[in-house]
C-alpha cells in the first residue's frame, strides 16, 4: 500500500469543472485534494511552438487519445460508434485543446419538454444559472460584445472583443446579404493581460495549445488560484475506483501512481469531474455492496444518454487575402439563426454555426484530400497550399437529443496502462441529427456563396472531433429518471457529486464549457453552503 491521505473533499479530474470546484472549495477554506491522471504541460511545450506543428498535431499532439497514446491517456473503444470522442488528459484537462468559444445555452434549452414536448426539462433555468455564468466570466476575463439579440437582455462580457479579422468581416458580409443573425464571437481568450493569463498574440493555434498562455485553459487560470488558496493537486494519479461502504456512502478513492503503486485518499465527500466519458467509466468501475450495478446507478442511467454534438463544416476559399493564418481560433463570429425548432423544418431543434480561420498550408492540403488526385498533387500542389491565406471555416455544432442507446459502458477486454477497464462508446447518429447536419451543410454553403467564395468543401460529419462529452450522469428531480439532483448530488449516494458535462439533461447546441463551469460553480457553492449537513461514511477515516 502506497500513500494514504485524508481530506474533506476529494475532486477527481482537473479540467475546467474540477478546477472550478477545487478553487471554490479551497477559497472557502475547505480542505480539498484534486487527483489528476495527467501532468502539467507548459505553454512552451506545445507542438504549436514548432514550425512543423501541422505534422506534430497528426499524432504526438492529436486530439484523439487513441491516436496520441500518451502515458496519461486511456483508450476509448469506438468500434461501435459513429464518432470518436476526443479529450486531453492533463492538468487543466481538455481545455488545453479547446477553442475557448465561450457561449451560453439559450433559455429554451432548459425547457424542451415544457415548450416542445421533447426529451426532459432541466431542473434549473437559464435565469438560475446566469449569476454563476457571470461570476465565471468575470474570473476568466471572457471577451465579447454585449447585446447579442439571440439572448435575453443582460448578457455582457467583462473584456472587449477580439477583432473579427478579415475572415469574420467576409463571413459577416454573407450573413448580412442573407439577412441572418450573426454576432462577434465570445471567447475565453484574454484580449489583454488578465489575472494569470497573458495577452492574446493571435497565434491562431488555440485548439492545439496556446503558445502565449492567453487562452483560458484551466491549468493557467482557476487552478493556480486554487493552489494559492491551499488546495492540494496530485498529478499522475489515476483513480481506479471510488470506495463506498455498506452504508452506501463514498469514503474516498483508490489511485494508481506512475510507478504502478496503489494509493488511497479518504474523504468526507467526493466530486467527480472526469468528463462525460471518464465520469461514467469511474462510476461503473466503483460498484460496491450497496451499489451492485456501479456507484449511483440504481436508475441504470449512468453512461446512458451520451450526447456528442456532431459537427459539420464547409470550408470556403476566396479570391481575397483573408490572412486566415491569424487567430484567435476561437470563434470569430457565430450565428443562432437556425438554433431553434421551426415549423418549416423536417427536424426539431437545430445548430449553432460559427466561423474560424484556417491556419496552415498543410491544412489547405488536408481540406482538399478528397479532390481528384491531379487537382491536388503534382503541379497543382503549390497553388492549393497557397489557398491557406484565403480560407474561412464555417462549422456547425448540432443538437443531438438524448437517446438511452447512446452510451458509455466498460469494455470487457480493453484496459488502460494500469490494467483498469477502458470505456466503450456506443453512439449512433439519429435521423433528426442527420437532418440537422445536412440542413446546415446546405446553409453554410449558401453563406459562402453569399460572401463570394470561389470554392467550397463540405464535410458532412467530423468523425473525430466530438470534444463535447455530455449527458452520462444526468440531473433531475426524479431518481428513477436521473442520476444526480440539480446540485450534482447523486440520488443514491448523498456525499457523492458530479460536476462535469455528464450532468446535461439535453445538450443544447452551444459549445458546452461555459455551461459546464457555471454548473460546477453551482455544485461547489452548494457543497460549501451545506457541508456540515453532508452525511459522512463511517468508512471515512476521520
Amino acid at each position, binding site marked *: 500500500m502506497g500513500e494514504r491521505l485524508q481530506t474533506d473533499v476529494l475532486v477527481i479530474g482537473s479540467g475546467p469543472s474540477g478546477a472550478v470546484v477545487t478553487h471554490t472549495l479551497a477559497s472557502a477554506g475547505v480542505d480539498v485534494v484534486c487527483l489528476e491522471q495527467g501532468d502539467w504541460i507548459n505553454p512552451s511545450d506545445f507542438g504549436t511552438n514548432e514550425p*512543423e506543428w501541422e505534422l506534430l498535431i497528426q499524432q504526438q499532439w492529436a486530439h484523439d487519445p487513441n491516436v496520441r497514446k500518451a502515458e496519461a491517456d486511456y483508450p476509448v473503444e469506438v468500434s461501435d460508434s459513429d464518432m470518436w470522442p476526443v479529450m486531453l488528459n492533463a492538468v487543466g484537462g481538455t481545455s488545453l485543446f479547446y477553442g475557448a468559444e465561450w457561449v451560453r445555452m439559450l433559455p429554451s434549452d432548459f425547457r424542451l419538454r415544457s415548450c416542445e414536448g421533447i426529451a426532459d426539462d432541466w431542473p434549473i433555468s437559464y435565469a438560475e444559472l446566469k449569476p454563476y455564468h457571470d461570476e465565471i466570466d468575470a474570473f476568466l476575463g471572457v471577451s465579447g460584445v454585449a447585446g447579442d*439579440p*439571440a439572448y435575453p437582455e443582460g448578457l455582457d462580457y467583462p473584456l472587449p472583443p477580439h477583432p473579427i479579422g478579415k475572415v469574420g*468581416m467576409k463571413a459577416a458580409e454573407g450573413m448580412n446579404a442573407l439577412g441572418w443573425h450573426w*454576432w462577434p464571437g465570445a471567447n475565453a481568450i484574454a484580449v489583454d493581460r488578465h489575472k494569470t493569463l497573458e495577452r492574446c*498574440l493571435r497565434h*491562431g493555434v488555440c485548439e492545439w495549445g496556446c503558445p502565449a498562455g492567453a487562452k483560458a485553459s484551466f491549468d493557467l487560470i482557476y487552478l493556480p488560484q486554487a493552489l494559492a488558496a491551499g488546495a492540494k493537486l496530485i498529478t499522475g494519479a489515476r483513480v481506479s475506483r471510488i470506495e463506498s461502504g455498506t452504508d452506501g456512502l463514498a469514503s474516498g478513492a483508490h489511485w494508481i501512481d506512475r510507478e504502478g503503486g496503489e494509493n488511497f485518499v479518504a474523504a468526507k465527500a467526493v466530486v467527480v469531474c472526469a468528463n462525460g466519458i471518464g465520469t461514467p467509466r469511474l462510476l461503473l468501475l466503483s460498484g460496491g455492496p450497496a451499489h451492485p450495478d456501479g456507484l449511483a446507478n440504481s436508475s441504470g442511467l449512468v453512461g446512458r444518454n451520451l450526447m456528442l454534438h456532431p459537427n459539420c463544416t464547409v470550408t470556403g476559399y476566396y479570391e481575397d487575402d483573408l490572412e486566415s493564418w491569424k487567430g484567435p481560433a476561437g470563434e470569430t463570429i457565430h450565428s443562432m439563426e437556425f438554433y431553434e425548432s421551426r415549423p418549416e423544418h423536417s427536424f426539431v431543434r437545430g445548430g449553432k454555426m460559427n466561423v474560424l480561420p484556417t491556419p496552415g498550408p498543410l491544412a489547405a492540403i488536408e481540406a482538399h484530400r478528397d479532390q481528384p488526385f491531379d487537382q491536388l*498533387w503534382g503541379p497543382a500542389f503549390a497553388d492549393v497550399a497557397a489557398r491557406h491565406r484565403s480560407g474561412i471555416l464555417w462549422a456547425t455544432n448540432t443538437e443531438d437529443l438524448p437517446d438511452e442507446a447512446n452510451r458509455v459502458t466498460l469494455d470487457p477486454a480493453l484496459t488502460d496502462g494500469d490494467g483498469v477497464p477502458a470505456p466503450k462508446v456506443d453512439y449512433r447518429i439519429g435521423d433528426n441529427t442527420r437532418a440537422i447536419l445536412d440542413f446546415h451543410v446546405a446553409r453554410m454553403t449558401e453563406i459562402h456563396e453569399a460572401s463570394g467564395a470561389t470554392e467550397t468543401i463540405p464535410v458532412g460529419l467530423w468523425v473525430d472531433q466530438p470534444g463535447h462529452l455530455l449527458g452520462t450522469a444526468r440531473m433531475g428531480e426524479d431518481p428513477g429518471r436521473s442520476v444526480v439532483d440539480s446540485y450534482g448530488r447523486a440520488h443514491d449516494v448523498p456525499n457523492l457529486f458530479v460536476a462535469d458535462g455528464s450532468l446535461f439533461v439535453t445538450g443544447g447546441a452551444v459549445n458546452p464549457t461555459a455551461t459546464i463551469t457555471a454548473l460546477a460553480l453551482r455544485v461547489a457553492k452548494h457543497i460549501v453552503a451545506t457541508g456540515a449537513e453532508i452525511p459522512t461514511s463511517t468508512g471515512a477515516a476521520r
Partner: protein
Amino acid sequence: MSVRPLSEAEREALVAAADALCGGGRLSAPSATPGYEEWLERALAARADAFEEVVAAAVALDGLSLEGRREALRRMNADERPRFHALSSVVAGAWLLVPEIAAALGYPGQVAAPAAFDEAATQLETGILDPVIARGPIYKEA
C-alpha cells in the same frame, strides 16, 4: 532527430516521392529546393510513429519514372489511404516547411500578431453589425 539515420537510397526515394507529389508547379521541386532534406528529417521526426511506413512506401516507388511514381501514388491514394496519408503528409509537409517555399506561399508561420488596440472597434464601426441590431431580438421566450 529521426528514429534512425536514413540510408542514401531511402533518402533519394523520399525526395523522389516528394518531387512526384509537389513538383512540376510554379515553384522549384523538392529535389531542387535547397534545405529540403534537413526539413525532411524534421518532418520524419514529427511523425516518428509512421517513420518505417513512410520510408517503405517511398522505397516501393524505386526505379519508376516521375510519371510512373505519380501513377503509383495515384493508386496508393485510392487503395491505401492511411499509407498515402502518412507518406504525403511527411514528404510534402517537409517541403512546405522550407522557409523559401513557405514565403513563396505567403505563409508567415503561426507567428505572434498582436492586435492594434482599436482594431476590433474599427471593424465594428464600419456598421457591419447594424442590420443585425436593426432586426431586433430573435431569442425565444421559454
